[in-house]
């Protein structure tokens, strides 16, 4: 049972990892091969470099939350609630 939960968590982790890898890879490759695209200002006069960069940071946070949420759904390791020093 323990192993099944671990495997499921690991699978969710890997899927999210590959999604983020695509986002990050997109950012890095646009910077490297089309730097002028990053200079365009698609929203509120702010350039794509800043918007995409902020987007990556916010996406990391949201995906981390999602991961935490999905893993908790599996109901594992209950004893770790509010560990005391």
């Amino acid at each position, binding site marked *: 049972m323990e192993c099944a939960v671990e495997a499921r968590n690991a699978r969710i982790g890997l899927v999210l990892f590959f999604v983020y890898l695509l986002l990050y890879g997109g950012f890095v490759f646009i910077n*490297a091969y089309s730097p002028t695209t990053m200079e365009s200002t698609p929203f509120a006069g702010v350039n794509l470099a800043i918007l995409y960069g902020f987007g990556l940071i916010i996406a990391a946070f949201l995906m981390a939350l999602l991961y935490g949420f999905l893993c908790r759904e599996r109901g594992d390791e209950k004893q770790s609630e509010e560990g005391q020093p």
Partner: protein
Amino acid sequence: MTAVIIFFLFVAVTLGLSFYLGSKAKSSQGYFAAHGQIPWFVNGVAFAGDYLSAASFLGICGMIAFYGYDGFLYSIGYLAGWIVALFVVAEPMKRLGKFTFADALDARFQSRGIKLAAGISTLAVSVFYLIPQMVGAGALIKPLFGFEHWVGVVLVGSVVIVIVVTAGMVSTTWVQFLKGSLLVVFSGILTVLILLRGFETRSGGIDGYEFKTLTVADANTLTDELAAREGIEAVEQLTPENPNLQIAFVRTRTKDAATVWSYDVDATENVVLREAQDAAQPLHPIGTISKLPEGQSKAGSLGLLSFFSTLQKSEVVLWRNQKVFNPDGTETRIYYQKPTPGSEVLRPGEHPVFAGIRSDEPINKLNFLSLMLALFCGTASLPHILIRYYTVKDAAAARKSTIVGIASIGFFYVLTLYLGLGAMTSGAIDVSNDNMAAPLLAKSINAWLFAIISAIAFTTVLGTVSGLILASAGAVTHDLLTSVFRVDMNDHSKVRVAKLASVVVGGIAVVLGIIFEKMNVSYLVGWAFSVAASANLPALVMLLFWKGTTRQGIIAAVVVGMVSSLGWILLSGDTYGKVYGLDPADAMVPFSQPGIVTIPLGFLTLVLVSLLTQPKSS
């Protein structure tokens, strides 16, 4: 004076807390892993404390303040690395290990070879990561007390050795928690103050000195025209070291003083001379906006996005430096103005490290790709981050604390762009050292804030350095002495040997911190990430995800990854130019960042060696 008192108060409280908590941990389990009893939330913020080192705070802000957007690429890469840590490594690591990274690698095989390789790689990465922290320490002490760089480095080194020797993982964790929270909170406050202050056009920094601009009609008669001006008694042409530079230099002498100027021809064919600074003279603070949109002289309180859109349409005076030769053959370093459109400041590719993305040569783009790959892969392989997984109770707590870590670190990294650009336009920057930009930005707002920010940054350095030294001490005692050389030690002597190792590693860090004074700390951290990612990540990931991994495969991957990345760095153009003082063009490797070659090399080595050494029964 107030600043100094606040600073000492802050540091004293931190140290007091550290000693108090340290006195509670006596066993080696307590010393290295805080008995595995740190609450996950505290551990998560302590992750931020560990991770937001001098490099993040000082280096990134400094790089943004001098070059614009490029420093933010480090923020993005450093944060993305946490994704690998959380989604791939966190939980299995927690389940595998006990004290150190080597424990985790060795969990399946019980091999002395793995312990040896992993222990040495932990030491190598920690020492590499220690250098920028120590350089950062020197940069902090200088503006606050006026001490020389080396005094700052020695001071931090001594304090940290005292902390580590008297304390251990419990106190280090709580200090990191305290420091991580303060750093994030005060950076937030600083950002709000920057936005409220807005932008203002100026021709000089906060010391009130205004840099002059002269216009001359014809470049061919420049010397004569200047000599004819009032008060100027002599004019000397200066020869820049770089013959391809688009800008030229001249020095004028009046009865009382000498002034250096840079000059170039503007759009109306006039020669514009801008006052420069001679490194041999006392330097004035810099960091100004020369033009705001629609000819305004002030753009008052700005929003989160209008901060960027206003800057996008402004012109900022950046400063560059160049070694020049005087007519008598002696040499001087000149800092000169480079008015730059905001749209260029806010785009990637202005810093020399990232300039390759604007070149047509594919090889130059590789350097950028390589660095971004190393940042992405490096976090999950840093020994001092990995040991933090052992300070919590179980895998779920490891996961939760990583999420808290990502939240605090991500928030902070968003702020770095505001802080860096705020520093760029603060009028308070030291033109000779980009590592000091963040504390000096606070100084431009008020002295209290300056003291608090400096103290937080100082404790940041203390905390990160303590964590790294602990990781190294753990590697020496636990991995090398106990497991590899089979030295029989009881619990008490293990802790004693670890403390001795801390003193030695601390000493080495101090020496290296003095040698590398002039390098941007974020850049140095980039190297540490490359070594960590090349040496540790292939072994860690394959062990977790490939059943065919063998003992020999792990040892080979760690050794090949470590040696190849270190070798690459030592033979790179950047090291040739900045460390050996040689011509970067003579470097033996085609670009400076090793990751894109050495990380795959580590994986390849592991797979090949594992395939060759599969157990016979299978």
